[in-house]
């Protein structure tokens, strides 16, 4: 393997891993924000409790996903300088601008507001706390857009001139309104909404499939009708939101997917067969999700969906759970088509990939490939298995938004040997009511 191949493979694997986390961050973010807004606005205590539980459950999954997403993003940020310095030498003046805006304006604020949201849970007034999460969502989308501006410039370079082999911005507006940035960003937003929706629907369906349709007490008393547990209410709401988000997402992703063909005809780049296959798969998945999503939406009024003939219902729930990875795999294909379709260019028509790679030795690049990709993939798999465990555990023992003493005591049962400290001291410690 040459240094060029190793650098490209490393970038592809790390970006692919990062992208999987981004899909959930951007897809689940608006859902958590809407749930929390409705919780903040709820007058009825029961409704507020349900929405609070839903906010905390999905918020916790969002966080566990975000934890590795941020880590994978950090690794990505240094990839360009580490392995593709030619890209910065030629286009640093153009390409660096959206990236510095991304880190300074978007990501910096996003992380700050997320810290405020998680750790200011019991301190901030409810409206300020809700606003903090909306700020996380908005800055997250801004972050994604600036990255697409940078990536769009590679695919369809506009608004610049080459002076002595170095690119200079001549028209910043053209850079931002580049169809390869704007249309692609909207296409990605659709894909993210779809991915978040499949997570919502898949997890909710898993729980609904197992939930008794009637509470044991009701059955024992011989009363008719289906009575819902509060937890069931959370899953039904999540399922409804997921179906709406998924159908809208499929519509947006498909629409802006087709819209991109217009500019793609005019930019240089090869069209290997894998790109055509990827396009076909994306069109198929997007179209199917939209049609099936519309059909399921029609079953929502009157909760028909949740009252279907039982075998049909369990089969439907099972299918929806199994289909959870579909949008993620499709999105990976889409991303691969984007990058492979541009080759052999790093910047279409301006800079070849082989000329952008650093002169690091193949051994060094392969070593870092094994180390970084190995660590990242291992952590990603561990993170996904934790997310799966948390998703299955449901709404019991949520750490996010619980009082500190509950969080610390909650795990006492299985947290190892009894505390060495005396009961009084330990109590003081757990309630954080210590010496001050």
């Amino acid at each position, binding site marked *: 393997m040459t240094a060029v191949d190793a650098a490209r493979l490393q970038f592809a694997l790390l970006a692919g891993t990062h992208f999987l986390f981004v899909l959930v961050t951007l897809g689940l973010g608006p859902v958590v924000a809407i749930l929390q807004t409705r919780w903040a606005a709820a007058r009825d205590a029961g409704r507020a409790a349900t929405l609070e539980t839903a906010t905390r459950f999905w918020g916790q999954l969002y966080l*566990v996903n975000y*934890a*590795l997403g941020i*880590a994978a993003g*950090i*690794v990505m940020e*240094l990839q*360009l*300088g580490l392995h593709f*310095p030619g890209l*910065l030498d030629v286009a640093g*003046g153009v390409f*660096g*601008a959206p*990236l*510095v805006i991304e*880190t*300074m*304006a978007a990501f*910096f604020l996003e*992380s*700050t507001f*997320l*810290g405020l949201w*998680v*750790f*200011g849970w019991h*301190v*901030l007034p409810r409206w300020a706390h809700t606003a903090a999460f909306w*700020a996380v969502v908005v800055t997250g989308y801004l972050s994604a857009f600036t990255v697409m501006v940078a990536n769009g410039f590679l695919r369809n370079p506009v608004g610049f001139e080459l002076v002595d082999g170095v690119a*200079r911005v001549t028209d910043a507006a053209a850079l931002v309104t580049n169809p390869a940035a704007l249309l692609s960003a909207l296409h990605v937003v659709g894909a993210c909404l779809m991915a978040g929706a499949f997570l919502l629907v898949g997890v909710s369906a898993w729980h609904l499939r197992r939930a008794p349709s009637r509470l044991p007490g009701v059955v024992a008393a011989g009363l008719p009708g289906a009575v819902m547990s509060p937890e069931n209410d959370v899953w039904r709401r999540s399922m409804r939101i997921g179906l709406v988000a998924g159908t809208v997402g499929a519509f947006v992703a498909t629409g802006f997917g087709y819209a991109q063909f217009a500019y793609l005809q005019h930019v240089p780049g090869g069209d290997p067969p894998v790109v055509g296959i990827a396009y076909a798969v994306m069109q198929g998945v997007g179209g199917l999700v939209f049609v099936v999503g519309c059909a399921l939406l029609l079953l929502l009024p009157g909760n028909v969906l949740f009252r279907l003939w039982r075998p049909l219902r369990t089969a439907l729930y099972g299918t929806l759970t199994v289909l959870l990875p579909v949008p993620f795999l499709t999105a990976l294909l889409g991303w691969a088509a984007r990058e492979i379709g541009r080759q052999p260019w790093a910047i279409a028509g301006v800079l070849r990939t082989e000329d952008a790679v650093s002169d*690091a030795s193949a051994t060094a690049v392969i070593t*870092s490939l094994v*180390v*970084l990709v190995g*660590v*990242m993939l291992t*952590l990603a798999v*561990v993170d996904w298995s*934790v997310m799966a465990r948390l998703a299955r555990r449901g709404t019991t023992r949520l*750490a996010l*938004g619980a*009082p*500190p003493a509950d969080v*610390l005591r909650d795990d006492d049962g*299985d*947290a*190892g*040997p009894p*505390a060495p*400290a005396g009961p009084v*001291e330990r109590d*003081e*410690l*757990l*309630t*954080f*009511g*210590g010496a*001050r």
Partner: protein
Amino acid sequence: MNALGWGLLLAALLAGWAVLDGAVQGGVPLVRTVGGRDDARRRTVLATVAPFLLLGEVWLVAAAGVLLAAFGHVEGTLWAAGYPFVVALLVAWVVRDAALWLRSRLPSPRWRRGWDVVGQAASLALPAAFGALAGVAWVRFSVVGSQADAGSGAAQALALGLPVLTAGLAVATARVHGGLVVAARAPEALAHEARRRVRRALVPAAALAGLAALGALAVAALGTASALVAAVLLVAVAGVALAARFDLDRGTPRTGVVRSSGPLLAVAPVVATAAVVGPAVLALAAPAAVLHALTWPVLGAFAAVLAAQAVSWRVLVRPLGPRTAVFL
């Protein structure tokens, strides 16, 4: 904004990272030692540094963004010269974050203790890798690098020794700073234990600062005059560390010297590096047109970030109380 302005912004971002993330780097290794075998005590130690995690690490991300946009050539040179340290920095950072976020998600004691060990190791490796990279910058962006390439024995010895020294300094200063943050926010039983560890770490930190000052003097002697500033700064920091140790020994842990010693020590490696490499780095800045075009968006964003961070510090950085959110 000219190259100097961008250089100062870069230094400010790195200093912000050293103070905020330094609290995590220094606090996490205390989880096992101060927390003991009781999981709730361990989580209490974690809770003291938890808010600094999301608020702190982005400063380094932003610094990398500024480096990429305004000092692309510096980044290229530094990454090429310090390739293994960059990879080590990334791995340590990613593993540290994973350890912190994942350790409390599952109830199994083995899972939690395992991640605590991993987190402790990664929290030592992170400042070490950063410090080593700073040392590589000392070499590459001063006369030492070119003289070592030309075959000067003294310069070659410095090129090997400086990264080791700065790595040790970064680890030792983070340890002091993190310990003081834990001591300031934790209940008294844990705070007392944390202060004991800080007391023990202060003399090695002062010694390493003194050695790094000698290294800076050597760089200055070879011809990079700005390293003299670094030497003076490092001697002053060593003095602060010893004064803090004196106050802790007297049994007066709440003096101004002790309080300020944490942040002062934490920024010492960054400020000293800025002094040594400053002139060479500024000379390699991007063309004025690029710097100029980016000025207002970046300064505006930085102002917004500072406002958001200031609000967050006010809300989040208080002694642990019943309204503290525990997540890690």
